[in-house]
């Protein structure tokens, strides 16, 4: 009998602790739900349980005690995914002590209190990919994060998401005597030409290949590169001009690498080849003409409909902010992509499910489906309308931003 009482008390205790956690059900009612994965749902309901989408559709019964977010006639869509965002890091993004630094992780430097994160979430972005800077040939490992959490571990959705490779001339830029400083040999060892960039890349992968066969991977750098060769880690390659893109394809062929191209300003020139090889692209930043003298000197040519031409050719296209904090938000990027000729649905996918797929997190984010994270953006109207405003952002089932 006494045992029974003890057991009962114990059970009550357990229930008391568990029960409040279970009741966390939120229902979002909206005039129009753009699921992205399927047809839009009119006057639908999304049920959120424990930060995940439990149910989505029309005529779903809202359980008693659920917190209801009535978005009225608003339009609801999945939280946006920025596949190339400005890194929420204080200080420099470029480790200049070596030009081949595959083991560096940007996740070690994340700052959850970053202003950039607080800003980007207000533009509807709930998942972002960030990586080390552009000053290294092989810069290090990027990470997929959500703009939430107090410590970096809470932010991370997927670490070691991709290896950053920069084939544009950015990785030669640090190769000069710093102004007003004592010149040292230190700054003279970087590659100065495209020849050297490609040679360094080739050498790195060659070494990794040798190591891979010998089964003795003691060098951590080579371990990362071997993982790339084994397709365990994708590589993001910065390539703007068509000539650089072709060079990247060549190196990829030599080592059997799976590429994801970033920036890709002249991608429209090689759209057919990219489609044939099924190479996805992450576009951005966007500009009307080469903006600065450096861009003119580089010789890049802009086609406003780059995204449209690529997607029409069958290339997977993601629209991103291109690591520029002051750039247009990706919803605006999608609006202008459509203005310049991209298909409407493709443009919406290009800021949600496509980047999620490219980053390998499509099982968690990128569309509104049962079982996925409850990352939801509530908009005042059609997402491709300039006068539409982000009214509310829900991240993992919690409202993280709303307008007054």
């Amino acid at each position, binding site marked *: 009998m006494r045992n029974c009482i003890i057991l009962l008390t114990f059970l009550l205790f357990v229930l008391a602790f568990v029960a409040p956690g279970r009741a966390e059900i939120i229902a979002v009612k909206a005039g129009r739900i753009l699921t992205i994965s399927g047809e839009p749902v009119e006057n639908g309901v999304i049920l959120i349980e424990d930060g995940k989408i439990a149910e989505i559709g029309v005529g779903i019964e809202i359980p008693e005690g659920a917190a209801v977010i009535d978005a009225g006639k608003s339009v609801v869509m999945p939280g946006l995914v920025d596949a190339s965002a400005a890194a929420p890091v204080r200080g420099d993004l470029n480790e200049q002590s070596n030009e081949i630094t595959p083991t560096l992780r940007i996740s070690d430097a994340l700052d959850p209190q970053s*202003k950039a994160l607080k800003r980007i979430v207000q533009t509807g972005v709930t998942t972002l990919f960030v990586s080390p800077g552009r000053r290294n040939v092989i810069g290090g490992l990027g990470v997929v994060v959500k703009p939430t959490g107090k410590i970096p571990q809470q932010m991370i959705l997927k670490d070691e998401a991709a290896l950053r490779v920069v084939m544009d001339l950015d990785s030669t830029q640090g190769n000069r005597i710093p102004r007003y400083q004592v010149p040292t040999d230190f700054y003279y060892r970087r590659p100065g030409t495209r020849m050297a960039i490609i040679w360094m890349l080739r050498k790195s992968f060659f070494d990794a290949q040798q190591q891979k066969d010998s089964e003795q991977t003691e060098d951590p750098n080579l371990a990362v590169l071997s993982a790339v060769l084994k397709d365990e880690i994708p590589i993001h390659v910065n390539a703007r001009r068509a000539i650089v893109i072709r060079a990247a394809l060549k190196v990829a062929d030599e080592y059997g690498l799976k590429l994801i191209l970033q920036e890709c300003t002249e991608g429209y020139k090689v759209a057919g080849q990219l489609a044939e090889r099924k190479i996805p692209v992450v576009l951005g930043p966007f500009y009307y003409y080469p903006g600065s003298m450096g861009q003119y000197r580089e010789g890049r040519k*802009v086609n406003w*409909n780059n995204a449209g031409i690529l997607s029409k050719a069958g290339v997977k296209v993601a629209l991103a902010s291109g690591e520029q904090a002051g750039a247009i938000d990706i919803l605006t990027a999608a609006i202008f992509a*459509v203005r310049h000729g991209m298909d409407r649905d493709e443009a919406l996918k290009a800021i949600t499910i496509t980047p999620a797929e490219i980053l390998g997190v499509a099982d968690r984010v990128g569309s509104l489906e049962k079982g996925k994270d409850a990352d939801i953006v509530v908009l005042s109207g059609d997402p491709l309308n300039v006068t539409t*405003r982000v009214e509310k952002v829900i991240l993992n089932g919690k409202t993280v931003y709303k307008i007054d």
Partner: protein
Amino acid sequence: MKSRSHITFISILLTACVLNALAHAAPVRRKLAVKAGRIITIAGKDVKNGVILIKDGVIKAVGKEVEIPWDAFVIEAKDRVVMPGFVLAHTSSGLDRANENMPEVPFISTFDSIDPISTFFEDSLRDGVVTMLVLPGNNTLLGGTGTIVKPYGRTVEAMLIKRYTGLKISLRPSQNTSRMGHMQRFRRYMSDLKDYLEDYEQKKADAEEEKKPFDEEIDVTKQPMVDLLNKRLTAFVYCDRAADVSKAIEIKNTHKLDTVLVLGPDCYKAVGLIARSKLPVILDSQLVVWETNEQTNEEEMKIIPMIFHKAGVKFAFQIDTSQYGRRYLWYQAATAVKYGMKRQEALKSITLYPAQFIGVDDRLGSIEAGKEATLIFLTGDPLDAQSWVDQVMVAGEIVYERAKDERLKKLLEPPLIMQEPKDTD
């Protein structure tokens, strides 16, 4: 005799041919009637399925029930939205260099520096901006005078609407100088000018007393500043920071100047002061700024047009041609509408208000009888990003057609050879 009549006949024939050819080369149609799906008049309510009657480049009548004369050439624009061309009240683009190195150069003019071939003007026409005041940049204290042009023509003379309009005064200190020194320089210039003018008046009075002819003219390098004091020129005062606003108002009050404020993004903090001054305002092209709330440590979006709109300030927008979105005046207006500004007011801020600020509202800025027929034909609503400027009419003449815009085609269409040769290895 016979041969002579022959020659006369042939010459008459030739003249007729030449005249005929000339007539075809310049198809100036005296009477036009634009039948539009929707007319955004700005002056009043929108007109659906209306007619704009134009004679010699001037609007004669607008409305639904306008009778089209038998001899008018009809432009069918049933599926188009017609509105007055956008007006840009302040820009320093289209110049080879926007700033002079010396700080006090009120006597220079952008008229000498405007580059008609600049892509800025070509883009402006494409984007529906048909009138702009080109002023010197914001780096010089007394920067020089501005020029109002239309972005159409091969020479500055052909583009010209009004020369010698507005004088740029920048309150942002130039490099390596402080705000103290900058203001002191201004005060000294003005006091020197005052001495000079007193001197001049004295000489004039003396000459009159002695009944001598007086033919000394005012120093050309000082003339624009004298015109500024006489209100023949308007001061376009650039304020970089909020603190500069009070100085701009002080200058305006001290010297009794006609003033337009050209504001940097930070100046919204002086909105109360600006509202009380009742001065016209030209906003920076950056309409949304972020600020950290010091109490909550949260990042807050400041919507500049809304702050000014709520304070009752009349303003015009600027653009930044290198940036997505900000490149277009319609986008600036749409941004303001997005955050709560009334549509009609936002549309006025890109047409009528800037026209008023630069003093061309008697001719431009709205569709009304008596104004110039400078119109844009849009494929849809002006605030919709999917609308394009299809045609531009300047004073009754179609000067831009999207269908013939080869450059735009090149920027939007895939290159001819999509598939490049593959590597053969």
